[in-house]
């Protein structure tokens, strides 16, 4: 029992220390970001690997999530004779919740893990260290562009996901289930607010972008410089990002729509 308590204490201290390191790290990275304005190409290259390479999974998942929402929503709504509201149901769930959240989860699996692994391997093979010895700050040269690329890519990915989801639901709803196309769009426009729903969704995905990129680059930068350390960091990135996104989503939802 004493042993157990001691372990718990040690674990707590360790986690607190890590949180502190992560916060200081984030502040240093943020402080270095303005310097990137002189070298936008660095960020463009990272947006390619973080954003463009995630497009496929985002497009496919977006369409399918939308189609499933269309089917399920229709089956529920038709019982109340309210199948015209399908557009509203789909658009609200996608803009407010599913778009930002599912995109962030997919981002963690596709781009976050890749970021952690890449940075971890650069550390393990002394590339970061050699950069430091060349008087180049890896936090500015390596971490900064990747972090910024993640923050930029996330809202764009979420917007694409949401839009394609609505298209998917529209396709299923009007072609397969016979919902009137005009009613689909007009009902949707009638109840989706730009500021309250669309913009809040964008804010959510921006927050998720910061958190997911932060976790990914920090885990990579902080990992043990061994192959095992890198693999653990990659796993931690996916797990921590998913938990953080779901937890934050609750808080943000309570703040925005509560």
């Amino acid at each position, binding site marked *: 029992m004493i042993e157990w308590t001691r372990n718990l204490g040690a674990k707590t201290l360790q986690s607190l220390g890590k949180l502190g390191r992560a916060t200081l790290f984030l502040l240093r990275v943020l402080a270095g970001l303005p310097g990137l304005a002189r070298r936008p190409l660095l960020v463009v290259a990272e947006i390619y690997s973080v954003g463009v390479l995630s497009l496929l999974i985002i497009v496919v998942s977006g369409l399918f999530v939308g189609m499933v929402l269309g089917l399920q929503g229709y089956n529920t709504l038709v019982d109340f004779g309210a199948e015209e509201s399908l557009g509203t149901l789909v658009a609200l769930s996608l803009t407010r919740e599913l778009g930002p959240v599912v995109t962030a989860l997919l981002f963690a699996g596709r781009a976050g893990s890749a970021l952690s692994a890449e940075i971890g391997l*650069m550390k393990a093979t002394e*590339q970061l*260290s*050699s950069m430091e*010895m*060349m*008087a*180049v700050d890896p936090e500015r040269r390596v971490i900064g562009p990747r972090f910024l690329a993640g923050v930029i890519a996330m809202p764009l990915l979420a917007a694409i996901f949401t839009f394609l989801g609505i298209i998917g639901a529209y396709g299923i709803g009007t072609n397969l289930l016979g919902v009137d196309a005009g009613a689909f769009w007009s009902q949707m426009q009638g109840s989706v607010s730009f500021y309250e729903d669309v913009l809040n969704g964008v804010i959510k995905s921006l927050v998720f972008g910061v958190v997911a990129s932060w976790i990914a680059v920090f885990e990579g930068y902080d990992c043990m410089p061994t192959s095992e350390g890198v693999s653990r960091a990659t796993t931690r990135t996916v797990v921590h990002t998913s938990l953080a996104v779901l937890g934050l989503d609750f808080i943000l939802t309570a703040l925005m729509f509560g």
Partner: protein
Amino acid sequence: MAIDSAAESSDVLVDIRGLHYSRGNKKIFDGVDIQIRRGRVTAIMGPSGTGKTTLLRLIGGQLRPHAGRIVVDGQDVHKLSRAGLFRLRRRMGLLFQSGALFTDLTCFENVAFPLREHTTLPESLIRNLVLMKLQAVGLRGARDLYPSQLSGGMARRVALARAIALDPTMVLYDEPFSGQDPISMGVLVQLIRLLNDALGLTSVVVSHDVDETAAISDMIYVISDGKVVGEGTPQALRETDSEWVRQFMSALPDGPVPFHYPAPSYRSELLGEAGPGA
């Protein structure tokens, strides 16, 4: 070793005084004094695990000593601001044991990296400079290859070209010979000496390959158990009366450094009298 400060600034590039460093409970350096003179090849030797790489990281300011000071070109490395340290590092090249090339860049881009980061030279000039450095290490033809396509020796030569890209005052070599076949080893040995003399560099070679290192160095420090146990020219060290240094320089299997890691008596362990294996 009484060098007055005037001579110090002119002749000694790196001055290490009373260096103490420990990792956990293990003392790595316990009062080390080393002077590295300008224009010379200085070797720092010792058995594996004596913290030779650590020493290079201390000189480069990546680690902080627990006591003592390291002065490079008149500047105390560990009292510099971050910007000052970065300015100093531009004049140092460090060749990592693994080469530490950027795996996502070609050889050309690897060598161009420090130039692009620290200068605003036009592309044509960068190209000329990079080709010149690659020519110096004999790998101009390999410029479009990626590090994964290079042999270990070639990767180290590219890393060397990168280390001298900014024309540093000093190049630090971390185990440049380990794990090399005889040919690439010979190439590297030659290169270090040649570059040192042709570019007027100061070279610090950390190694445990006695013969190769002795062949090119002007001055050797032998470190063991956190202390300098021998210093002098290669010739002087070979003729030293220190038993330990002789064992190291002549690669004798047994001597003051025992063949066996400290352990309880073999006999008692075999008979299962004690120990965790019982």
